[in-house]
């Protein structure tokens, strides 16, 4: 599909990096301010979607194949499940235990394993939304060969 006019391209060139940075901020500060893994993940995917829509799929050289976004999604959820399984080794030996030290309230490095869960769930949600968008909007038909 074709891209958009020059004004839209230049504006997204300026904005996409800011949206990506704001998405990372919302994910990392998930245990201090409103937000968390899900909102930040969809914001990160939104910055990529903005770039693809503004420049067109011909320019970004997206051929009719599966891109690497599903690889990131599967790796992130695998690491999250391993983090949950690691509760079986430490502390009270239960699944999904919050075994890192809690720290003081209000710091970034606090609340045990909750920031780690936020980061990996954020990566997984971002890759999922990007895969759904690519499959429904860009690669619409089946490859008929």
């Amino acid at each position, binding site marked *: 599909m074709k891209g958009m006019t020059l004004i839209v391209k230049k504006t997204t060139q300026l904005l996409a990096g800011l949206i990506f940075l704001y998405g990372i901020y*919302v994910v990392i500060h*998930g*245990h*201090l*301010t*409103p*937000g*968390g893994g*899900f*909102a930040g993940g*969809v*914001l990160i*995917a*939104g910055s990529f*979607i903005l770039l693809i*829509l503004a420049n067109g799929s011909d320019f970004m050289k997206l051929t*009719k*194949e*599966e891109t690497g976004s*599903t690889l990131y*999604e*599967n790796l992130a*959820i695998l690491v*999250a*499940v391993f983090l*949950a399984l690691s509760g079986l080794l430490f502390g009270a030996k239960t699944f*999904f235990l*919050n075994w890192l030290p*809690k*720290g003081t*309230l*209000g710091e970034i490095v*606090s*609340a*045990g394993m*909750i920031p780690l*869960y*936020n980061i990996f*769930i954020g990566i*997984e*949600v971002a890759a*999922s*939304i990007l*895969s*759904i*968008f690519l*499959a*429904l*909007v860009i*690669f*619409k*038909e*089946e*490859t008929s060969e």
Partner: protein
Amino acid sequence: MEITLSIITGLMILGALYAIHAKDLLSAVIACGIVGYGLVICFLLLKAPDLAIVQIVVETISLIIMVAVVLDSSRQELFSKPDIQGYVSSITAILLIVVLFYFFKISIETLDAFGQGTLRMATHYIEGATDKTGSANLVTGVIFDFRGYDTLGEATVLITAVLGVLTILRIKGKK
């Protein structure tokens, strides 16, 4: 507070009624956005900032997908002549609506008044949350520590949805 919420919900109902009866499919999809973005304002009034952030970004993605589906096809809804089957389904719908509304009105008498609900379950979550989980955001503490299985299930649902979309559209991988 109640008056503001009632006015915004009334506008959402008007938007939903227009979305159902619109002749052009693109107008119907954009009118679905009225309901979604009005919900963001309702969440902000009900003191839930987490939900407002998630709803506004998810509604934008959902609108993008629906507009892409509608623009790729014919945009008109051509059939509007009423026939026997249309009348039967309309009467069934109205009967169902009246019965459900009557039962809902009866069952709402057992709820407390708006805003005076007793936090029977939540007092246990709020009191020990900052000591047991260590996070300042109570909703994140509830999601990832007290109710972690729900989050794991939700991640699984997202992955299954991606798998389903890729299978239905038969997108082949690299050769």
